[in-house]
């Protein structure tokens, strides 16, 4: 990670020579079933192993419950259920990614597997045009292309900030 950062820094510094450094964004690649999704690393606070989730009654089905994250109570939601996919099946690879979207407001999301961290330049990201957005792909703002294939980039603000609607 450090190496990547210095690399990015180096590119920034070369600005003075008239070279425009490409904007690099780092993504954590996660898997839901066979599909790969990318989560912008700047929102990721932490990745923790699966642990006991305390169910909270009378909330939307995609809110799985709450966990204890070093003394803080953090809600956990299921991206799968939110995207109308099959419910999560807990395996050894299942992880909870803790996102920090706002100050003092963490939320965890369940993923099947965390694969790797990739660097994507702006040119490798293809934005999804507004027309192409239907209800289900609303959570995706772009497609990233890299050696490992294609990753759908999650628009975390619509995924998570869509606060719990009364069910």
């Amino acid at each position: 990670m450090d190496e990547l950062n210095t690399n990015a820094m180096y590119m920034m510094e070369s600005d003075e020579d008239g070279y425009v450094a490409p904007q690099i964004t780092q993504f954590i690649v996660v898997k839901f079933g066979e599909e790969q999704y990318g989560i912008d690393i700047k929102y990721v606070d932490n990745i923790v192993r699966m642990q006991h989730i305390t169910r909270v009654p009378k909330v939307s089905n995609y809110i799985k419950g709450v966990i204890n994250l070093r003394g803080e109570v953090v809600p956990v939601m299921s991206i799968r259920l939110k995207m109308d996919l099959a419910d999560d099946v807990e395996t050894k690879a299942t992880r909870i990614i803790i996102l920090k979207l706002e100050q003092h407001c963490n939320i965890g999301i369940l993923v099947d597997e965390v694969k790797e961290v990739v660097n994507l330049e702006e040119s490798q990201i293809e934005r999804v045009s507004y027309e192409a957005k239907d209800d289900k792909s609303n959570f995706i703002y772009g497609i990233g292309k890299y050696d490992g294939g294609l990753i759908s980039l999650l628009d975390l603000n619509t995924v998570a900030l869509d606060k719990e609607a009364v069910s």
Partner: protein
Amino acid sequence: MDVSQYLEIFIDETKEHLQSLNTQILDLEQDSENADTINEIFRAAHSLKGMAGTMGYKRMQNLTHDMENVFSEVRNGNIKVKANMIDILFQCLDALEEYLDNIQSSADEGTNDNEPLIKALNQILAGNEAEAVEEAAPEVPEIKEEKPIPQAVKPDQDAKWTTIVLGDSEKTVIGKAFEQGKKVYGLTVYVQESCILKAARAFLVFKAMESLGEIIVSSPSAQDIEDEQFENDFSIFVLSDRSLEEVIEAAESVSEIEKVVGGALDLSQSPSRQSQTVSEEKEPAGETEKSVQPEAGRAKEAAAKAEPVEKAAERHEAVQEAPQTSAPASRQEKKPAANKPVVNRTVRVDIEKLDSLMNLVSELIIAKNSLVSISATSASDSSTASAFNEQIEYLESVTTNLHESVMKVRMVPIESVVQKFPRMIRDLQKKLGKKMELYMSGEETELDRTVVDEIGDPLMHLLRNAADHGLESAELRKERGKPATGSIHLDAYQDGNNVIIEVSDDGGGIDVTGVKEKAISRGVITPEQAENMSDKDIVNLLFLPSFSTAEKVTDVSGRGVGLDVVKSKIEALSGEVDVKTKFGEGSVWTIRLPLTLAIIQALMVVVGDEKYAISLGSIETIENITDQDIKYVQAKEVINLRGAVIPLIRLDDMLDIRKERSGDDNLVVVIVRKGDKQAGLVVDELIGQQEIVIKSLGKYINKCKFISGATILGDGEVALILDANAMF
């Protein structure tokens, strides 16, 4: 000048000053001759003016300036305090509060010039007896006259830095700095006379300077400044590569700094000053040479840089000119009160820091809980077990103490809230034309900070109610044989784990029949229902939304948005509000608040395979019942417990817990109470009583009304806290 980072401090301090002004002026109204009070008012007004000026709030500054003038005349004995003057001063405070509100919401003071007020203040100044006019008149022009005075003379008086004698080592440093193209500035910093902690302010200035550059020398010495061995000013030489303006700004941005006078130590720009410095030095030649050389080098290096230097000089003059306007005013008050009254020294602690401390404590408690749970499971070897228990007991006492002391840090006296009430009652008295007196006791009673912040509005409402609806008109009071002046009491005291705040009046009390009629005419209750209601029930109708008995709507109260808001606000703080009244004799409103909200005693229960906590405060009893005890009323399960019919709530149904109902016909029922209603919660198993730390569920989950929060158990698991009040 970027002062946004100081905005918060400014708002806080301004609030404090306004509050103290309010209190002091009230005192002044009672005792118009008290010199201490007048001095205190004067100081507060003066600091307000200085702060507003620093922050660039001109309108606020103008108003406070005129207020200060009035106080200054009062202090000099040229003006006597009169009733209409007090009124105007209170209006001024209201106007200032308005400015502050604007600033708080938009960082802008707004556009209200409050000219009528300023005019009124000036009339007080001018409209006095002949000698007062004589005194006041020269004072005002004096300020204006001084502005145009060419400041060629002034700077040398103010710019005391020019008289600093430089030692050899400093000269070397300065010389080197010039070689590196850095600039050396001389600054004289004037601290406000009213400033209490001059050394601290000076320290802040030093710190600000160090962030921009390096302090070469100061006069008096740094040690002396630290020990507060200086009058109201000190001078420093700063080495920096920033512009003079930036440096001065940085110094001025420290609060309670009257002004900063400065200039660049630069031969070509200020020969006169240099010569002054030179004349005081033993070896002027060396220094001059050293300085000149790099100066020339720098000029070659970049001709364009010469311009900024000039500009800096211009700015320097501008900066000097600006403080001039406020200087005369401050000089007039060169009579600081010899014996300063004891000012409450407070420490502002960032609430966030406290919260993190709180967090640590809660983790400690969690650790303790885990020890408890281990001891419960592995008590095989008796000797280790007893040692283990000893440790636990020790840990328990430590955590309890730590908890208590941290809670104390969070506690603030309710004084900060209630001290604005005397002023409010005074205004109400004028507005309503009733005579009344407010008696307060127990202002020192402490409550959790979060509670204190919230309690102000409900209390204000109850007081207004008491003044408007409670107290009768003077004629009626006479008729009833009461003293003409109504009295309202505000008493606060601690009662066990609760704090009680009582608002009582000796007014007419609540007209129960009146409330009943009103409720029937509004369709809140039917006449038949009214027949069966006790007086207490009827009085409680007042807490329903949109229920106001005021015959006519005044702007004091009676819009019908009162008591229900009071009730909901108090309940949101886990408190209760109650009223006792006797028609014709007055009423007592009682607010009962828990001392603390963050840690509670709770009963842990199991439902299905989930654990829940129920606050011990709402639990009445725990009963074992059998299936046969369950009766049905309107198809709902109830039990008859010692004569009382109590509805049963199946927690597994209510909380959607999937579980098989066992054939076992013994049920554990936790009886909870809210007010005088009871309900029985059916649980599977009891774990026991535990001290739990309340954690919020966060923003994402707030829709489940039965859950008031979560807590972390000894094994690290999260358990939810049931809100028994929401079950009814």
